[in-house]
């Protein structure tokens, strides 16, 4: 946050609005205490538990048998899902920005459904269409395909909402210039549109990947917990039930580390995206206080947390 604040025109300190009444010191104390009790202490207890029988035991717990298989399975499935949603998410975002058809605003609204719908309900509705009583006769329940479908469902909004604002902002002059010089549709996409979308697309895909790694509810009923469809989160749940707390904690720590690496990559992508933009001169105007025309919608986007920060830097 600090870095972003540095890009904004900041009023002289004495005139700046401070936290009312209580003052910054007390407020900071409350925030740190709250985050410690709610978030950090439980995680510390888990880390402690995972290492309680030594680092060697930790390693044994995550590198063998079902634990290793479940971690590998979720990694592969999340990669596949990230790829699928990169393609379809971009297509849907394209339809929402560049195409016009009846019902477009409804489409725009239901994209966020996976954010709003409880994951266990997602599991249940996917079984209705793709389970053993499937009206179209496709039964993929309790298979690895079901894992991929469930993860596609819950991560769908991430890519769409990351790409959409970039498409809205994109200058169409370049495309028109390319077209007038004789470039075909695919060439224009590959040479002009795609490079411009890349930072947002990459961040959206990384967010989807991070979310997919930990997904639990939507996979639980639809893909089940058989040995060959057991993803890491389901494995952790079963280890808790059987009382192997150390094993469950160790796999949890590995899963957490993978997600953190992913978030770190997202931060790097943002930096790169901002620099990319600044190089084009878009981010050079450091004096604008007013947000861009569609900035409100962008920043209100749950699927694009990273955009908040991008906005901050762009100003």
């Amino acid at each position, binding site marked *: 946050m600090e870095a972003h604040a540095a890009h904004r025109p900041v*009023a002289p300190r004495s005139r700046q609005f401070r936290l009312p009444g209580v003052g910054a010191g007390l407020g900071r104390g409350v925030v740190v205490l709250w985050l410690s009790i709610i978030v950090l202490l439980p995680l510390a207890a888990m880390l402690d538990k995972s290492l309680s029988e030594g680092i060697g035991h930790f390693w044994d717990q995550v590198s063998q048998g079902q634990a290793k298989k479940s971690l590998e399975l979720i990694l592969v499935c999340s990669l596949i899902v990230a790829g699928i949603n990169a393609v379809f998410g971009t297509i849907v975002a394209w339809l929402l920005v560049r195409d016009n058809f009846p019902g477009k605003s409804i489409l725009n609204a239901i994209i966020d459904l996976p954010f709003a719908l409880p994951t266990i*309900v997602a599991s249940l509705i996917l079984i209705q269409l793709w389970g053993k009583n499937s009206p179209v006769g496709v039964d993929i329940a309790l298979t690895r395909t079901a894992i991929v479908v469930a993860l596609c469902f819950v991560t769908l909004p991430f890519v769409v909402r990351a790409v959409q604002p970039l498409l809205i902002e994109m200058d169409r002059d370049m495309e028109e210039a390319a077209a007038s010089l004789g470039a075909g549709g695919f060439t224009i996409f590959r040479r002009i549109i795609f490079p411009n979308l890349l930072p947002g697309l990459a961040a959206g895909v990384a967010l989807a990947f991070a979310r997919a790694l930990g997904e*639990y509810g939507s996979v639980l009923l639809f893909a089940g917990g058989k040995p060959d469809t057991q993803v890491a989160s389901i494995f952790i749940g079963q280890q808790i039930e059987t009382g192997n707390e150390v094993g469950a904690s160790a796999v*949890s720590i590995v899963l957490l580390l993978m997600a953190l690496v992913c978030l770190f990559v997202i931060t790097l992508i943002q930096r790169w995206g901002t620099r990319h933009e600044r190089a084009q001169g878009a981010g050079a105007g450091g004096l604008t206080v007013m947000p861009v025309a569609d900035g409100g919608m962008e920043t209100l986007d*749950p699927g694009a947390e990273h955009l908040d920060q991008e906005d901050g830097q762009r100003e």
Partner: protein
Amino acid sequence: MSRSTSSRWGLRALGLGYIAVLLVAPLILLFYKTFEEGIAPPFEAITSGDGLHALKLTLLTVVIAVPLNTVFGVICSLLLVRHKWKGNWLIDAVINLPFAISPVVIGLSLFLLYGKQGWFEPGLAEAGIKVLFSTPGIILACVFVSVPFVVRETVPVLQEIGTEQEQAAETLGANGWQTFWRVTLPAIRWGVVYGVVLSTARVLGEFGAVSVVSGNISGETQTLPLFVEKNYENFNLPGAFGAAVLLALLALVVLMAMNLLKRKEAA
């Protein structure tokens, strides 16, 4: 021209087809299956003792967890945006953590902290407070998962509005609280409300974290999402479908609220 038209139709077919088979058709099918034999079976299942209890418990978690995180979120956003401090990046990173952690892992971490041999176990046992497998544990899980939403939605709005109006209020003699209530809060309200809507949706539907800490005891520690799972696994389909439809309807209300707020913000 015909080539670009055909590629446009191709894209439409792909994009809309994907949304149809992934989102729309399964959801419609759920509603159809639920009400196939009339409205009575699912309605009776949710208004049964256990169903009603699950609904009440779910609403209780929302009523406690969401306001707590809203107050925290507003204070935290003000600190992050308006008060430079060396540790702000760390606060920011910790706030994002619940997004990165699997719900089951969140449940496990609470389970270990408050459970047998946990760090807090001796003190809690002495005080006679039961956290795990009872309501406090469920609420803690819901608070954990919904920490980031209000902060994430309020911070960018605070950055956008700048400090000019606040300075004006201050120059005109308003004190800190007056400035906050009359200038800052009205300016950020839609951001805060959007965060509240997202938190509510998450708490209403939280499954993984709650399932680990609650013990899933019918009529006691069962929230609505847990009710769906247990009834489905016990082949009590009217109960599972009825509760799922209720949650889906709530999700649709949340969606409508989200879109309304986006339009308000854009206007």
